[in-house]
């Protein structure tokens, strides 16, 4: 398990189209560590990401679909990607439109694995 979360975010933020990545406390949406492009509001992003993840995890748990491993909110101008790394931590990435989503997903899952 790696505690240097900042180092874990680096491979993510190097990917084309990624605007920022962060680790968030899953229960209250507080920023643990972030690596964001200028102008991005970390606190708001963390709160919104945690709230969405909480709703989605409730839904998948209630429907007995198994634990949510990867969540993608796809919008017209970009994506919000979430990986519940543990019960306490959520890995968050925000991207623009043209991004290698498959690669970003893989890097996020790898990073989350190293956080456990």
């Amino acid at each position: 398990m790696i505690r240097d979360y900042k180092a874990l975010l680096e491979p993510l933020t190097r990917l084309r189209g990624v605007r920022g990545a962060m680790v968030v406390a899953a229960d209250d949406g507080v920023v643990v560590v972030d690596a964001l492009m200028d102008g991005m509001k970390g606190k708001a992003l963390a709160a919104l990401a945690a709230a969405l993840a909480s709703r989605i995890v409730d839904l998948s748990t209630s429907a007995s679909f198994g634990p949510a491993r990867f969540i993608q909110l796809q919008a017209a101008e970009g994506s919000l990607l979430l990986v519940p790394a543990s019960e306490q931590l959520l890995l968050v990435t925000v991207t623009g439109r043209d991004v290698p989503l498959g690669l970003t997903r893989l890097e996020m899952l790898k990073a989350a694995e190293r956080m456990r």
Partner: protein
Amino acid sequence: MVEDIRALTAQLAADPTSLVFLRLGEALRGRGQLEAAQKVALTGLSRYPHLPDAHDLYARILADRHDYANAFDEWDMVLRIAPNHVGANKGIGFLYYRAGDRENAIRHLQLALSADPGDDGLRTAIERLGGGGEVWDTPEAAPPEITEPLPQRSPPAPDPFFGFEGSVNRLLLASADGLRLGGGLASTAGEDVSEVAAALVSGAAREATRAAKLLDLGEWRHVTVECGELSFCLVQPTSDTGLIAAMDTALPVGQLHFLAERASKAATSWLERVR
């Protein structure tokens, strides 16, 4: 023809569950008795709401009455139930032609021809249309006079996802207040989780809307969730509904998006019909 109609009417009276209503409706339509034909078709549809030929009959009557929008909907319904239905593909092809959309007209006529390759008239029509010629060039007659108010079709389609694979356990439409509107969801163990999931869908959709807006991501299109056993895609067919399409996690995510998109279109059409 008169004898036919009398005989068919007698047969239907003797056995109201008989499919002879299809022949009777067509015979009445052939004589231009559209009002009577429509009553027969609607009565048949209320008894057999999933029968493609019943929808096809009703669509042809509507087209004869120049009610093209509803005719299109009926033929569209036929194609959901029976994608290779010759009559429906011909009908929709005709409507596209009327609307000046030759490309889609040819596509549907070709689908009809592939299901009925012996139809030389249809082959000729496609060739003429492909060459820029006219096909249905008879001047349009005025619609027949309607003396009575048109009866409303009833009941509406019973479920928005009728005809879809997984319509009862992998597709769920929920209202903003958490009620199940159609379809159903089951866990991998086969337990019905429709009601509990419906109660949570709108909250998740609201959160997605809020996040997309406040993060300047533009309008959201879907939330796709990869879970341990089943993956699901959340979309909004309308602003006040949410839809979940679920699929085995091992299947490609593109397939899940395709299912969600198709189901969303079906749900939108169904909602327009029932509201």
